[in-house]
């Protein structure tokens, strides 16, 4: 039998099938985060499954991304098969499966922002934060700076087309961004 390891597995996800032996030892959700999760679940009196996204958001907010053990934790919490959580995690662009930097930047790529210079903004942000985006593709959209401080990705339309180029840094929203250095300088 294939041993359970931390190594990434291309095809099967054995740990998802064998819940008992998963990473529960190392993965712990702090009590305050779990309390928030429990409160979120009460918003869905008809079906707990509806709470998948809100619970994912709480964990992603705390951990920065949704790891495999996090998927299993959510599944157990909501009494779902882990695949029901994983299929959601892998679908949505807003859910990360790998660790972002301390500050995660999302630059709007779509038409109005692109016309206002979002590609140029992306370039200068990468240059300033020393981020290499050459390995970025559809399945791995995020690039992280060597020091782990910043990570960056293109996002599709952030719905502020009149004030482009716009970006989000964690939960902070910036409009008409001109100076990459000035923006990054806000984050120590």
């Amino acid at each position, binding site marked *: 039998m294939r041993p359970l390891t931390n190594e990434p597995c291309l095809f099967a996800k054995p740990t998802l099938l064998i819940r008992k032996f998963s990473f529960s030892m190392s993965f712990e959700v702090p009590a305050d985060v779990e309390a928030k999760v429990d409160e979120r679940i009460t918003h869905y009196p*008809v079906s707990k499954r509806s709470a998948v996204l809100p619970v994912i958001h709480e964990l992603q907010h705390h951990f920065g991304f949704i790891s495999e053990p996090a998927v299993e934790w959510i599944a157990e919490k909501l009494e779902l098969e882990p695949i029901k959580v994983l*299929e*959601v995690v892998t*679908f949505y662009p*807003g859910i990360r499966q790998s660790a972002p930097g301390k500050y995660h930047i999302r630059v709007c*790529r779509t038409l*109005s922002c692109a*016309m206002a210079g979002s590609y140029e903004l992306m370039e200068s942000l990468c240059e300033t934060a020393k981020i290499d985006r050459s390995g970025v593709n559809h399945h791995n959209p995020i690039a992280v700076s060597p020091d782990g401080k910043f990570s960056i990705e293109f*996002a*599709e339309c952030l719905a502020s087309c009149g004030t482009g180029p716009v970006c989000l840094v964690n939960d902070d929203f910036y409009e008409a961004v001109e100076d990459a250095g000035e923006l990054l300088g806000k984050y120590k």
Partner: protein
Amino acid sequence: MSDLKYIAGKEPHPRERRMIFKNVDREGWDQSIDTYEKDGGYEMLKKALKMEPGDITSEVKAGGLRGRGGAGFPTGVKWGFLPPNNEKPVYLICNADESEPGTFKDRYIIHQDPHQLIEGMVISCFAVNAKLAYIYIREEFPEGAAILEKAIEEAHAKGYLGKDILGTGFDLEIYVHRGAGAYICGEETGLIESLEGKRPYPRIKPPYFPAAMGLYLCPTIVNNVETLCHVKHIIELGGEEWAKIGKPNNTGTRLLCVSGDVQKPGYYEVEVGSLTMGELINDVCGGLKEGRKLLAVIPGGSSAKVLRGDETYQVGDDELTIWDIPMDFDTLAACGSMAGSGGVIVIDDSRSISWVLNNINAFYAHESCGQCTPCREGSLWMKKITDRVVAGKASPQDIDTLYGVAKNIDGRTICAFGEACSWPTESFVEKFKDELVADTKPELSDDILNPESELAAAGLG
């Protein structure tokens, strides 16, 4: 209206009529319930709660309110689709997933005037007898979600939400549900799937019309943020009076969001049809940039068909230039496009048409949910072909292939995303074929037979 003061530099244009955006950029305004109540907030809820629920629906029908999310479907008619003698619970969902490129109106309602939305929602829930409602807000509005949650808490404390609202015996809970960055969640059945905790694959209609089989397979009404806010104003004026704003069948005010190559991009609330495209661009938005000519306008969000700057349109007996088109639902439809979500993207002659189309195609290739083959494959093919055009590696025949791919998506998918992703390509090729072909290389025509190009043509290269 004249006694309202706005933040310096953000005053409404004289051609505007501010109802929904009355409090946006208003001096001394904040999102608190106290400020809202001082301005007459929640009075319309009190008025509505004294009415019969059916009468509210009748007023909305009389007002002729058309949905502001993109399709322009009459809201009262939508509500009327709820099955008679229904015994299942009814749900109402506010679609705050604003994500059509070019559209940025709901953002300001949510961030600056959340209680207007809550009031509109409570009235609408009362009208359709929904006791549980959700606001499905896009994940990229973290601040907006927090503002709405605070507003809901405030409304609760004042007895506008919760059990026995204002002593009428009507109960209602509203919760905020955050999406996770997927455009398809703006499609109402995709949104419902997402709210059920699944991948947002849109459902097939029939039978899954939300009004009959929506959230948890119960009757569900899904309305856009702006639409729900209008309900409050319809109660204030009465349907008949409200219908006098705008034009017949195109009633009320409309939030237009202008972006792209104009002097003053921004949001403008006008009576539907009271402005022509020319007045919008030249008067309200300060005209095009210095020395530029109009190349194209996308009038209703990026999935609306593009209008060419130098084209004329036959509407009834009139021949209109692009400057003369009144910005209403029916005329834009007659011109072969749509009023959609109100997002107007202006493109001047400094832009490459191939680049613009490629940007749009990249968006739809990224956002196709992947459920239906023509859209999943086709949206990516269209992006890859325009990638090649932009890179100067396309042959003139590629433009025909591009058009053929688009034509094979439209009408062959479960939801309207198929149309949304193919209409830009179809219309750009129909109207700007010469410009697109000019960016291709005739000498590459022969290369189509080599293995690499074949793979590329199949979208695999």
